[in-house]
């Protein structure tokens, strides 16, 4: 009995990874004025950031429609048969209507197939990583219950921090949440952002300057990891060198079992702008089923 993992393009999973693990992705949309692009299908990160520079106004994004999800569900059923179990792990409902579309689509399927829709309360590769782990577990023959249990544990425990160049993108896109309080100072104050338990963007702390911000994040991560083996991913937009340096530093300071360096995609990039540096960390033992 097959278990298939479904997600959306905001999970920033590479096509090669998805194909290898049989993960199905539903694209969100990015709009530059009148032009609409399918995230990860008709536009990728290099093209997106190039257009971002040329385009005067900020792009906007939109969730997939319920029908987009219905099509995806149907496609899975066609490929794997009616007995397939679908686990949909999607972008934080606090940030997007994607979850809602996925849930509506599920009711539209009228119990033709077993679908579990999960609000990841996360975004980008933080959602992506658990899709990868869930797909691996499915391939290893773990039960749906075991996999759901692991997903829950991961979503509760995973550590997420990110630093942006400017809060302007989060603010204009309406995703700033409670981080709004740190806007607008004359001094170079860097908010360290995270996602709260409900999936909203919130300020974890604020410090003066990038160097301090990175040190503060490392301090928080050490507090979490307590020298245990961890899995990490470093996320960035348009700053591969800084991201690589940061990963090097992580490798020196932590016992890292698995690491990923990943550029964020167009949808998330629309709301953070270039210059984002982010990290997710989870203890290796918490990913075991």
């Amino acid at each position, binding site marked *: 009995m097959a278990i298939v993992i479904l997600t959306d393009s905001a999970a920033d999973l590479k096509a090669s990874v998805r194909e290898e693990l049989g993960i199905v992705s539903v694209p969100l949309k990015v709009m530059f004025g009148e032009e609409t692009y399918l995230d990860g299908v008709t536009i990728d990160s290099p093209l997106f950031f190039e257009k971002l520079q040329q385009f005067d106004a900020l792009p906007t994004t939109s969730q997939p429609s319920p029908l987009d999800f219905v099509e995806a569900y149907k496609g899975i059923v066609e490929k794997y048969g009616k007995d397939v179990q679908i686990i949909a792990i999607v972008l934080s409902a606090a940030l997007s209507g994607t979850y809602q579309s996925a849930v509506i689509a599920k009711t539209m399927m009228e119990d033709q197939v077993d679908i579990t829709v999960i609000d990841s309360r996360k975004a980008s590769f933080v959602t992506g990583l658990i899709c990868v782990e869930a797909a691996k577990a499915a391939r290893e023959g773990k039960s749906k219950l075991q996999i759901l249990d692991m997903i829950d544990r991961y979503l509760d425990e995973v550590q997420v921090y990110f630093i942006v160049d400017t809060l302007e993108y989060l603010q204009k896109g309406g995703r700033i949440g*409670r981080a709004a*309080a740190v806007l*607008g*100072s*004359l*001094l*170079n*104050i860097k908010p360290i952002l995270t996602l709260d338990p409900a999936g909203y963007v919130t300020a974890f702390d*604020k*410090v*003066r*300057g*990038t*160097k*301090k911000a990175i*040190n503060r994040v490392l301090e928080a991560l050490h507090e979490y990891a307590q020298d245990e083996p961890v899995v990490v991913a470093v996320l960035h937009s348009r700053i591969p060198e800084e991201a690589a340096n940061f990963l090097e530093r992580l490798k020196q300071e932590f016992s890292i079992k698995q690491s990923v360096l990943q550029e964020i995609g167009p949808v998330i990039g629309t709301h953070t702008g270039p210059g984002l540096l982010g990290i997710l960390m989870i203890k290796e033992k918490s990913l075991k089923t």
Partner: protein
Amino acid sequence: MVHTRLDGVLFSRMVHLGAKLLSRNAKVVDGLNVFPVPDGDTGTNMSLTLTSGVEELSRRQSPRIGEAAAALGHGLLLGARGNSGVILSQLFRGFSKAVNGKEEISAGQFAEALKAGVASAYQAVMRPVEGTILTVAREAAEMAVRASRSSDDLLLVMTMTYEKAQETLLRTPEMLPVLKEVGVVDSGGQGLLFIYEGFLRALQGEELEAEEQQAHKAASRVDLDELVEEQHNAQVHRKTEEIRFGYCTEFMIRLTGSTEPNKKPFSELLFRSHLDTMGDSLLVIADDDVVKVHIHAEHPGSVLQYAQQFGSLHRIKIENMREQHADILKAAEERKASAEAEPRTDVASLPYGLIAVASGEGMAEIFRSMGVHAVVEGGQTMNPSTEDFLKAIAGLKAEHVIILPNNGNIVMAAKQAAELSEVPATVIASKSIPQGMAALVAFRADAGPKENEAAMTRAIAHVKTGMVTSAVRDTRMGDVEIREGDYIGIAEKEIVTAGSDLLQTAKELLLEMVDEETEIVTIFRGQEATQEQAEALEAALAAACPDVEAEIQYGGQPLYPFIFSVE
């Protein structure tokens, strides 16, 4: 003349004379400040503080020591600026509590009150340092107590107290190495000695000098009307039938002295003490040839008869206060009724009110951009008073106030304001502008006051402050030879470099402060530094430490061309 009892009148004269001596010598005291940086303001601060006390004392004149001391204490409390000012206010706060309710006191009680003041001051200072005004006050008070055991003569007790204070002051360099290094006595202690000298001279019978009296009287004359007004207000709290002295009596005596056969020579003290037996709310202001009198008496005729012995009477005004009082009560009730009819508009609207002390328009701008609601003007050269803070707090209408004094000499005045404030207030003991800003970065509107206090105080520890200014006198600090007018670079509290070139001195200081741990440097450019100079500094820093982030901000602060924040 032997004084064995101290009443409000004599006490008031002592304080006036003390204030006069201190104010005349404020610059001398300023000059004793240990650092050659332009924050030599101990004398100015003490004098401004005492002036505020004296003003209150003049407004609420009383022949009763308890009331006079309470007025002084209250005025000092509100006017306290600088650490020395706050300590001074505490000395008299303790004093006034000890004599509370008393009409007059003996020499022994005077000594005990001085001691109570010392206890209050020690309590107010978190880490009392010996070799300062505290030591001078303490040893002098101990001597006063010893002296009063063998004599009830106030003059004698005060003489011993003064001499002990002087002796202790001379020993302060032995107690505090930094004083010895520079070769001065403690400035606050010196200020206190001037006040004690005034006390002593008043007991010896010295009056305020003529020109001082003129000024004093001119001010008081204006005050007379105000005083009558105030007394009216005070009377609202009393019942008409409680009025013991029914006639408000005002008049002037043109003194003829002994030149006329049937007139007596005038002595202000005797005159005052005699009138004091005839009523209350007594005010006597004596000039060379004119005496102005205000008294509430039950038998105004007797008062006038007595006064007439010294000269001719003028501008006599007698009013029945029982009749007036009924009117005042009626008016007050009407006022109250109309006040209650109006809805209250001063409801707290801010959960947090943030107050920061800064000087320079750029600094104020930066603080405001960081969420500060009120910037109190002040800094090294001008320390805001407790009252300045109270006004700022009152202006905010916040549920909780957080104050950033941003200067070591302002912390205590801010704390005193926090204690007096009706709105709960927290003082973060920031001792420099960079510390204040670091604390603000750690502030969170969604956290509780205790949590914010802890986080903001922690943040202060992670920032180093550097300041460049020019020396106000020749001196030597450790290995550094300093000439007046030289630029000096101060890291935290220590002078680390000095020289005649601003940029060179600033560069040396900055590079001295930066180390491997340094993450970010902010250069605050003052009034006297150019943007080019600031950029040259930034370039020098980038060359020496490429990893350190740097930022230039226009602070516009006076006297300090550069302030560095090193984190």
